[in-house]
């Protein structure tokens, strides 16, 4: 029971040129693990996640979720986009139900339970335009979770939020992950976010995207960012990350 990612090659055609975005990316995420992937912008980490979700199928290789090959997007691979992407004409509870009927007792109960978990009680009837960005992203998470995904994929889900909201949502996410014992893969460019959340951190190198290093965090939750053991892991990840960065400068890319 796991997520197996084996991407031999993924290229984009940019005008006349074929640009290799991902090269030999091999990852295995055990059931209940929380893998975070960090890398510089443009390293293909979002592309990697889209491939796992089945949103991008033009690549060499294969992705298996619980021994089933992913060929198209679906509820088994829950996906949280960078923007919340809620339906603006639906209320919070309608958004969570989405294509399911709230009149169904079973759905109703699940939605209510989910609202409780993502701490949105009292906002069931609010429209997305009436709630904050952090709340909207929680609705999006609830919308994915209610469908019992086998893996939850998050593409820089808190990137657009302020530091306080981000910290809060990271705690909410850990809470959900522990409660539901769900496999998660989160992509981010924030080193602290990656270490704070992940059981493992994959550092992605750019041009072409390739796993530079897989670091096992091995700290218990909740994690204290100021503790020496946390700082130690941070140092390790940072060093690896700097290696990928320096390579970019040598290649004449970067900022």
């Amino acid at each position, binding site marked *: 029971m796991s997520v197996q990612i084996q991407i031999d090659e993924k290229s984009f055609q940019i005008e006349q040129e074929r640009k290799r975005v991902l090269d030999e990316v091999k990852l295995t995420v055990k059931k209940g693990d929380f893998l975070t992937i960090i890398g510089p912008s443009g390293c293909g980490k979002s592309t990697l996640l889209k491939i796992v979700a089945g949103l991008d199928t033009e690549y060499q290789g294969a992705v298996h979720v619980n021994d089933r090959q992913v060929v198209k997007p679906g*509820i088994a*691979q829950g996906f949280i986009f960078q923007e919340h992407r809620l*339906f603006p004409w*639906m209320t919070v509870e309608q958004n969570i139900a989405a294509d399911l009927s709230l009149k169904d007792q079973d759905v109703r109960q699940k939605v209510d339970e989910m609202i409780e978990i993502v701490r949105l009680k009292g906002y069931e009837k609010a*429209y997305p335009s009436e709630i904050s960005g952090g709340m909207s992203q929680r609705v999006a998470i609830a*919308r*994915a979770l209610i469908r019992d995904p086998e893996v939850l994929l998050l593409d820089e889900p808190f990137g657009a939020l302020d530091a306080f909201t981000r910290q809060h949502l990271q705690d909410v996410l850990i809470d959900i992950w522990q409660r539901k014992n769900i496999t998660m893969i989160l992509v981010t460019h924030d080193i602290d976010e990656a270490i704070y959340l992940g059981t493992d951190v994959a550092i992605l190198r750019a041009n072409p995207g390739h796993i530079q290093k897989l670091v096992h965090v091995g700290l218990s939750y909740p994690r204290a960012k100021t503790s020496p053991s946390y700082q130690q892991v941070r140092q390790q990840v940072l060093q690896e990350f700097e290696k990928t960065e320096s390579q970019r400068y040598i290649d004449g890319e970067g900022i």
Partner: protein
Amino acid sequence: MVRAQAMNQPVAREKKARKSIPIWVKGLVLPLFIIVIWQIVSSSGVVSATVLPSPLQIIITFYNLIVSGVLFSHLQISIYRAVVGFLLGASIALVLGFVVGFSKHSESYIDPTMQMLRTIPSLAVTPLFILWFGFDELSKILLIAFASFFPVYVNTYNGIRSVDSKLFEVAQVLEFSKWKQLTRLILPSALSHILVGIRLSIGIAWLSLVVAELMGSSAGIGYMIMDARQFSQTDKVFVGIIIFGVVGKLTDSLVRILEKKLLKWRTNFEGVE
């Protein structure tokens, strides 16, 4: 700080007092002003009553037409024509707009023809409609249907094409069925466009009704106006014009109420106070 606040208070109160005038009262100021001037001019006898009857005289004629039932019977037939014509045109437009909006294939087959027909003024086809369908109800209803078709068609098509592709991706991830994609994503998303189309269409239906009735008929508000013109009953002409205006405004308000109800999730800029 404290002083600044204290100084601000009276200003704030003044603003509130001005706000308490309801919007509909504000809307009445200009028409009332015009009517008063008009009545003064007419009463002074500067202009003859055949050219410009006084507001008072128009009201009397209005009253007489209501009491005799003449106005009501004309209005009834006019509304019947407009409603049937609009429903016919708008429903075909809705279906066709959906079909063309959905499939690229049907777009390339149907849309160019529609765009060509769209540019033809309904006035230009009126003689043809009369030749084909005569002077009776059919030609009028078809003319109204023809005119009210295009706003709904264009806006429905646009509405469907403007559905956010990002939300389509979400629907894919959530495994929406084709039916749910239509009812929970495309329809709600296109609804604001469709309603704009319907509003425009109702306006045009009303406009073409006048054209149809002025061209030749034996009943309806348009006929009443033409008939009154022949006998120089200017006051009656005014009554007809007023009826057109009032009914047009009422139907428009109705659609707007519908719009507010159906699109209550929208947060749009509503103008500065």
